[in-house]
């Protein structure tokens, strides 16, 4: 169960492979559910050219560890990994990775989505967008995670 805060760009697919190699045993897990959030070049109808992610060192990590502990209590997980970028970033760059490993798929799917929703509602991160006219604005709230039809 690992939480990482990255000050520079990270490759989520590399993070998954490295974590899997170092922490999991081949043949013991049957299901890996992952989610990667990537910076878009549009939001709320405007073009966005850069973003700065602020966090609360100490509290952010402990909140992420707490939500992982909650997921372990609820589902039979073999492992979970959360990586979150902070600092300045640009469109196309990964912001967050959540990965869950379990024997069967239901637990991996459920836990991955739970972690992502819990992270977005409880972990202290804040996004500030830079628009094309070089103006800045704080993102005020996250989009709904359950209405997609």
């Amino acid at each position: 169960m690992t939480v990482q805060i990255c000050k520079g760009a990270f490759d989520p697919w590399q993070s998954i492979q490295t974590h899997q190699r170092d922490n999991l045993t081949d043949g013991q897990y049957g299901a890996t559910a992952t989610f990667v959030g990537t910076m878009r070049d549009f939001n709320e109808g405007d073009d966005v050219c850069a973003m700065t992610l602020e966090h609360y060192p100490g509290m952010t990590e402990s909140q992420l560890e707490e939500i992982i502990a909650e997921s372990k209590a609820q589902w039979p997980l073999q492992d979970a990994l959360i990586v979150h970028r902070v600092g300045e970033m640009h469109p196309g760059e990964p912001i967050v990775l959540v990965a869950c490993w379990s024997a069967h798929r239901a637990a991996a799917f459920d836990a991955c989505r739970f972690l992502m929703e819990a992270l977005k509602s409880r972990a202290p991160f804040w996004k500030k967008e830079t628009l094309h006219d070089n103006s800045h604005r704080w993102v005020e709230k996250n989009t709904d995670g359950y209405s997609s039809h």
Partner: protein
Amino acid sequence: MSVNVKFFASMRETLGQSELQIDIDTNQTVAGIWSRVAKDLPMPDNTVCAVNHTQATPETLVSDGDEVAFFPPVTGG
């Protein structure tokens, strides 16, 4: 007694400071700390408060050496 107060994101910009150490009387609440540091600015409705990295309410009592934080709703992920 003394507490460490932190502000993040738009709250940090609004108040023009990110961190300060203040001396307070005993039996202070988080709301009391806000009044000391924010002067006449009422605490915005959606403010999130934390004491020692755990989410708190305006009524939460603070103790000597605590870290108290104020920030807007989180928008990570």
